[in-house]
């Protein structure tokens, strides 16, 4: 029999992990990719919130003199054809991306929860009708539906959020519905009914809170998609309009004309989009593993 290092085995299992900091370190060691994702997402959110402080200059200030200036000590990431500072524009772009991503996700979740809860809880023909509606919406890819929505609503920040939120509804509704279906059969829901509690109160107080764990995972994963769709819509000119600096639109404005002459105009927004989506996906995967009770021992 091989000699067993009890301390090493215990350390792997996370014994003696107490307090906020050591717990954070422990999870970072167990899910290193998730930790990377968390850092990226945290940096992204920080940048978006404090964009005014971080950005050296006004992202909308134009100056024809510096049109297409290459990266230098003055313009760290160069300047676009209107002479606007790319670095400041990328930083403010994070704010737009976060606003659209979080806004769309939040709105999508509220609508999805309402539909999923109603569908799973009321069942019968209500469920049947709502589910077929969700099927129809899911038959079109997220991007395509968002394009249709955005095109019919017209470009504005609010409409972009709305256009992305609606296509997100079916997946949220699905998750909430399926956990509702299993939850409403559980004895604690029956106990609430035996006490004489109204169905609405049961749904909100006993069923809803227990559907949240899988929802958090879904929301984090979908945040990446929402940011990507925003970029795509703006790339197509259907998204966030001027003067808001949007990563997607930065790409579209420069891609065709300046990709050879001023590649920094294409590279930086591209990197920003990829990194953010990559970060949210990593975090989403780690959260899924973490919140899955089967993974916990």
């Amino acid at each position, binding site marked *: 029999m091989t000699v067993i290092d009890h301390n090493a085995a215990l350390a792997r299992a996370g014994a003696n992990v107490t307090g906020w900091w050591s717990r954070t370190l422990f999870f970072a060691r167990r899910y290193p990719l998730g930790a990377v994702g968390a850092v990226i997402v945290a940096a992204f959110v920080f940048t978006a919130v404090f964009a005014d402080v971080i950005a050296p200059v006004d992202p909308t200030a134009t100056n024809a003199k510096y049109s297409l200036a290459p990266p230098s000590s003055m313009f760290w990431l160069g300047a676009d054809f209107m002479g606007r500072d790319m670095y400041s524009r990328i930083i403010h772009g994070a704010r737009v991306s976060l606003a659209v991503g979080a806004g769309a996700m939040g709105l999508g979740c509220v609508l999805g929860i309402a539909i999923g809860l109603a569908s799973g809880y009321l069942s019968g023909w209500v469920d049947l009708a709502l589910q077929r509606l969700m099927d129809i919406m899911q038959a079109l890819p997220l991007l395509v539906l968002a394009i249709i929505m955005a095109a019919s609503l017209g470009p504005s920040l609010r409409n972009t959020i709305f256009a992305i939120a609606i296509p997100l509804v079916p997946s949220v509704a699905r998750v909430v519905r399926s956990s509702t279906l299993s939850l409403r059969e*559980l*004895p*604690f829901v*029956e*106990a*609430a*009914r*035996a*006490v*004489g*509690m109204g169905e609405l*109160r049961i749904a909100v107080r*006993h069923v809803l*809170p*227990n559907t949240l764990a899988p929802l958090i995972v879904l929301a984090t994963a979908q945040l990446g998609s929402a940011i990507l769709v925003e970029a795509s819509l703006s790339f197509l000119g259907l998204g966030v309009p001027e003067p808001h600096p949007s990563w997607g639109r930065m790409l579209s404005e420069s891609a065709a004309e300046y990709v050879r002459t001023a590649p920094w105009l294409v590279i930086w927004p591209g990197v920003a989009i990829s990194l953010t989506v990559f970060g949210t996906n990593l975090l989403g995967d780690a959260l899924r593993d973490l919140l899955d009770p089967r993974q916990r021992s």
Partner: protein
Amino acid sequence: MVDATPILEVKDLKKHFPVRKGLLRRTVGQVHAVDGISFSIGEGETLGLVGESGCGKSTAGRAVLRLIEPTAGSVRMAGQDITHLPKKALRPYRRQMQIVFQDPFSSLNPRMTVGDIVGEPLFVHGLAKARERREQVAALFERVGLRPAQMANYPHQFSGGQRQRIGIARALALGPKLIVGDEPVSALDVSIQAQVINLLQDLQRERRLSYLFISHNLAVVEHISHRIAVMYLGRIVEYADTRSIFVRPQHPYTEALLSAVPVPDPTVKRQKRILEGDVPSPVNPPAGCHFHTRCPYAKAHCKVEAPPLREIAPGHHVSCHLR
């Protein structure tokens, strides 16, 4: 033991579930989960409802509480017919009848503190202000053997036996007259089982509670029940006081059930009467007496006509052609 008007009186209770198949969910048959059962429970009395899985005992318990709507028959609480009461009118009766579940894990909402869980019935019925409610919940905690300081904890911080005590405290909160126990001790370890059975019996003596005690464990049922109803495939086959059931079982199924119970005493060598085969499906139960397919004494007559539940001695009811 039995008062003039029993706390609970059930007559010809039936619960049929439709069996749906195919894309259009057409009804292709009926599961006769509960197929016309009658019984009554007096104040301070425990009726044991025993039978094997699928016999309909849990469905019967839920139909009595109107957690599922009975298909036919009537349920009377303290003389009042509650079978068809609309939801609002039913609410005051909900205070008189409560339920304790088998699974101590899924019967408590994992996202609520146990203090909130036990206090919620009081809140829903608007029975006490926040402060009074806390005091009442604390008193309930003490009564079931938990420390009031634990009220702020969540269910996962308790052991199975403690959770079952929390479930009992919740059931007691509204001061019910009847508690339906759906296998309340079956999921517990032996040493914990005894604690919970004793608690239930103490509470019964203190508060003149009536229990409908649903269980497959004959030893527990013998210990706790005053009277027993034995169910097989949705029907009561024998219904009598505990002594009669265990000393002079009359139905062949009761006989077989008792003989199959393993007795924790190696010196007892009994002639076992092992039943052949399995319980038939309740979707298409056998014609005549439901038990004839496994009955060692079945006659031709048993396959055709269902035997009625007859009183063959004072208080001893059996449904068998041969008695």
